[in-house]
């Protein structure tokens, strides 16, 4: 029976190929929407993970801080339990870092006669000392040290970033869900049309004693294959976008560009998209079959 179902399904997919392509495209679009958001969230998540593992306190030195003050500061920091590692940035290094983060501002910053950025010490905070209050106290202490202009920590930024990631994912899922529903309904109507077209055949099969399973299996298989095809199309399109943005000099907001190109979806997520396509197809098939079977 399996061979029969597969053969029937493939034959009929080919016979109605235009209609089926449309249905696949519909699923592909919804999965593409979902996939885009997942890609953004994935890369964003990587950033957050990288950054989140670094809780840093930035200590900005005064312009007139002496070399001695600086080295004494660094020495005293090295011994402390809160400190995981420290990195010193000269004003020049700070400027370069700034320009790398915000390439659009490169021209503006290079036109300045004086480098406005101070020298700074980036302190990576060790595990166990990352509670907001502890960080606050530590930072206050840094501010009072000789040679220090200011100090701050960026925890709120990381938290907010995590929220953004979650929101992105949620937006993607809900948007994908809504479009996905449309896709399921589209496939359902495609399958229903197919069934109507084969009404006579189905009736005769019933009259000679075919079970409902025997009759339904090819349709279900057909709609599932349509779904997988849609999933595959969406992955292909997503990858094409990914590579296109990476290769072209498209004037996208750098952040968005980075989020689209840093890396592609992990294999598990890609497989998930295919699976969702399959499910959408199968659901669509089931939906229309329910209305037909008496």
């Amino acid at each position: 029976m399996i061979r029969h179902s597969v053969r029937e399904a493939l034959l009929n997919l080919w016979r109605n190929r235009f209609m089926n392509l449309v249905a696949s495209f519909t699923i592909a679009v919804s999965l593409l929407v979902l996939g885009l958001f997942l890609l953004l969230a994935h890369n964003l998540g990587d950033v957050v993970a990288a950054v989140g593992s670094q809780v840093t306190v930035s200590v900005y030195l005064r312009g007139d801080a002496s070399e001695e003050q600086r080295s004494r500061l660094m020495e005293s920091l090295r011994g402390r339990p809160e400190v995981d590692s420290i990195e010193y940035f000269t004003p020049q290094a700070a400027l370069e870092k700034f320009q790398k983060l915000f390439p659009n501002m490169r021209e503006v910053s290079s036109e300045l006669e004086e480098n406005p950025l101070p020298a700074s010490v980036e302190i990576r905070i060790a595990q166990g000392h990352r509670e907001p209050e502890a960080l606050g106290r530590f930072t206050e202490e840094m501010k009072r040290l000789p040679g220090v202009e200011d100090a701050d920590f960026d925890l709120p930024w990381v938290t907010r970033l995590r929220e953004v990631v979650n929101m992105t994912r949620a937006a993607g899922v809900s948007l994908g869900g809504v479009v996905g529903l449309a896709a399921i309904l589209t496939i359902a109507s495609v399958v229903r049309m197919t069934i109507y077209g084969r009404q006579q055949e189905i009736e005769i099969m019933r009259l000679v004693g075919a079970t409902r399973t025997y009759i339904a299996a090819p349709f279900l298989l057909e709609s599932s294959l349509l779904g997988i095809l849609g999933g595959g199309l969406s992955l292909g399109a997503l990858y094409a976008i990914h590579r296109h943005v990476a290769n072209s000099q498209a004037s996208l907001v750098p952040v968005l560009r980075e989020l689209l190109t840093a890396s592609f979806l992990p294999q598990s997520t890609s497989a998930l998209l295919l699976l969702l396509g399959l499910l959408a197809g199968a659901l669509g098939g089931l939906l229309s079959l329910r209305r037909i079977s008496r």
Partner: protein
Amino acid sequence: MVELYHVNKDYGRGHQALVDINLAVEKGEFVFLTGASGAGKTTLLRLLFREEIATSGKILVDGMNVSTLSASGVPKLRRRLGIVFQDFKLLARRTVFENVAMVMEVTGVPRHRQRSKTYAVLEMLGLNHKVRSYPLELSGGEQQRVAIARALVNEPALLLADEPTGNLDPRLSWDIMTLFKTINIRGTTVLVATHDKDLITRMGKRVLTLDCGRMATH
């Protein structure tokens, strides 16, 4: 083989297709079901293979209680029967071979057996030269014979035929009846609905008559 006890079929709004039908057909019998158009012949046949459900009464076919059959039991019933429809009900997009073999495909008969049985029954009906033709390429008589071949290929216990010669000329009609007689001799119970009086007279078999939904007594 077929037993009906106080069977009624009511379509509502005063349209009673069958009223208090009682009849029995023994295994191996050859029975004609006759009556004017609209008398209820087709309805009665449809009750036997559960295309319709009786409003009341009991129906037994080959030992199965048709009235209480579940949805999953219906295919099992139909596989024991061979049904010839008045409008043939052939699949236009399949060849003659495929139309006949389909019945066995559906019941999971292995491929090689399908081939041999299909060829055998098509030969018996004089259709072996049309094996690869499509129904629309055949004459009415040939199409009817394909439909009969399909009904017979699974060697059913009971053959139900609804006006099987309605579209055929007298000579062909007689050929078909002779064929039915042969099948009947081989053991298949045959129930034929028809209003061809000449045929009935010539065949000399038992006759059940329906008159406005009721069984007429002879």
